[in-house]
């Protein structure tokens, strides 16, 4: 086999690593550590269609009429039973956050590990998107 692959580290490597470091730092500066201060609620979409709006301060869940059979609300728990699959969402009204606790999607169930602080939670196989809303947005929707 060719000799070019014998060494694990060559001089120009440093250039590659520095370039990557720069990219990572830039990304962190633009996106990284922001946490939404004014979270007022969130929207739940399936397949890019709005099916429910949550309001944290009023502790209310507003479900669009046509989708009332898909969304089951019982106290702090919202269960979604769409044609794509099942997801269980637990709402913490006091801390103004939501979390997906159960899902029957594939193997890795990434939605359960997503952080609402980032502003968005996605269950890709179920086309489920939960977006956070800031307080002023909620007022306009009402």
């Amino acid at each position: 086999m060719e000799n070019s692959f014998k060494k694990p580290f060559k001089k120009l490597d440093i250039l590659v690593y520095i370039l990557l470091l720069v990219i990572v730092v830039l990304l962190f500066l633009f996106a990284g550590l922001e946490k939404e201060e004014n979270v007022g609620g969130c929207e739940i979409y399936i397949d890019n269609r709005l099916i429910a709006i949550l309001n944290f301060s009023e502790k209310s869940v507003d479900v669009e009429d046509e989708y009332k059979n898909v969304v089951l609300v019982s106290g702090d728990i919202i269960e979604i039973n769409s044609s794509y699959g099942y997801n269980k969402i637990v709402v913490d009204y006091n801390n103004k956050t939501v979390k997906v606790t159960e899902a029957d999607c594939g193997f890795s169930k990434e939605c359960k590990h997503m952080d609402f602080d980032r502003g968005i939670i996605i269950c890709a196989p179920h086309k489920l998107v939960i977006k956070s809303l800031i307080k002023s947005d909620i007022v306009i929707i009402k």
Partner: protein
Amino acid sequence: MKSKRIALLGVLTTLSIIMFLIESLFPPLIIPGAKLGLGNIFVMLTLIYLDLPSGIVLVLAKCLISAMFGGFSALIYSLPAGLCSLFACYFLLKLKSKISIIAISAPLGTLHNLVQNVVFCLVTKSIKVLLYAPYLALLGVLCGVFTGFVTFLLVNKFSLILINKFKINEIQEDESGTI
């Protein structure tokens, strides 16, 4: 000699599919969407021992067959990411005299994760998805270095086995491709 190339490609493709299935059993690595990217090992091996068309076949076959297990909706994410890192790998390998395998593999991991993130953003029409990008990029570099190291070990040990036992250096010499 073409049959040897096809057989080798078959083995590499199967291994990368198995790797994908094993990886999907792991919970997400800290950040959702960040995978160990062990499949990239086989992309690199294909581009080193075979050629670009074989690499394209590997990525397409791997994505399609993996979709049969994990759901076809995953194709919008895995295909662009896989093809982008394949072509990036192809171009980076041209510089192999100046950069080591590990440094070639590091950007591949980052690119794969970032492309998936961008596709997520386009599919959900929400820019907030990009907030995960920095963490994905950082993890991509770390995983890329890891897979690069594994590939490095494989290329240096595997080569000897391939050449001595299976006389696979004949694959490289035969450019005409006749059977």
